[in-house]
């Protein structure tokens, strides 16, 4: 089984890079890769639990995040250092997000066969 890690470092608003990263994550999962979805830097804003799509006049793709579990991507990872940088804590995030330090993320990535960054 192929382990694929996708690191999302771009925010959900202002660029579609993160959305396109999630699209690829779903396709990789459909091809039976074991997918690690890692959010770091401004990418952690994808995981904020209080996003309101009507405030930014476009489709909110947190629905896409919720679809992940149907593709067996049941674990989302957030980098602790990034959360600290933006004064965010677990209570701001969606449930079932696992927080990892950058060194833990490093080892997760080094155990992966394929790595993408968005």
């Amino acid at each position, binding site marked *: 089984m192929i382990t694929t890690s996708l690191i999302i470092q771009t925010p959900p608003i202002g660029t579609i890079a993160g959305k*396109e990263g999630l699209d690829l994550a779903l*396709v990789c999962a*459909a*091809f039976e890769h074991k997918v690690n979805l890692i959010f770091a830097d401004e990418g952690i804003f994808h995981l904020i639990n209080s996003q309101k799509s009507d405030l930014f006049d476009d489709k909110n793709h947190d629905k896409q995040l919720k679809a992940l579990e149907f593709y067996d991507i049941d674990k989302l990872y957030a980098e602790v250092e990034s959360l600290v940088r933006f004064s965010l804590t677990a209570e701001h995030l969606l449930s079932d997000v696992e927080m990892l330090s950058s060194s833990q993320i490093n080892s997760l990535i080094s155990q992966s066969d394929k790595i*993408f960054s968005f």
Partner: protein
Amino acid sequence: MTAVNPFLKAICLFMTSLPQTNLCILVTGSPSQSQAHLSALRFIRAALKAQQVIKSVFFYQDGVLVANSYTCKPSDELNLIEEWTALSEAHNFELQVCVAASNRRGVINQTEAQLNQINGESLHQSFQVLGLGQLAAAMSAPHSQLIQFK
């Protein structure tokens, strides 16, 4: 006479040290806002020199913009479509663009144009439109190595 680029030489040395792999090249950077295409072209040339096999190059995100045949650049600037076309034809690999990423950026083929009642296709003939599944499948092949240029 042009001097041998030291970076190219370093990449070549690195590539010859690798066992034979199937290189999956992914280009996600914009042709006009990033170095991605130039770096990818340079890497592929070095890889080929080091006897590596390039099966295909996949374009995703803003990388697909390179396939827009309506691009008109000043004649003294590098024409990326010509570079990609020449390299892919000489070494027999496909240039694949993601259908979803290219459609949303106005890079469409004849079928898509007809489907949306748009006059004319904008996709350059050197490129093939494929789904993301193609990339996932290429990555699933044994001994494949993914390299992303962004």
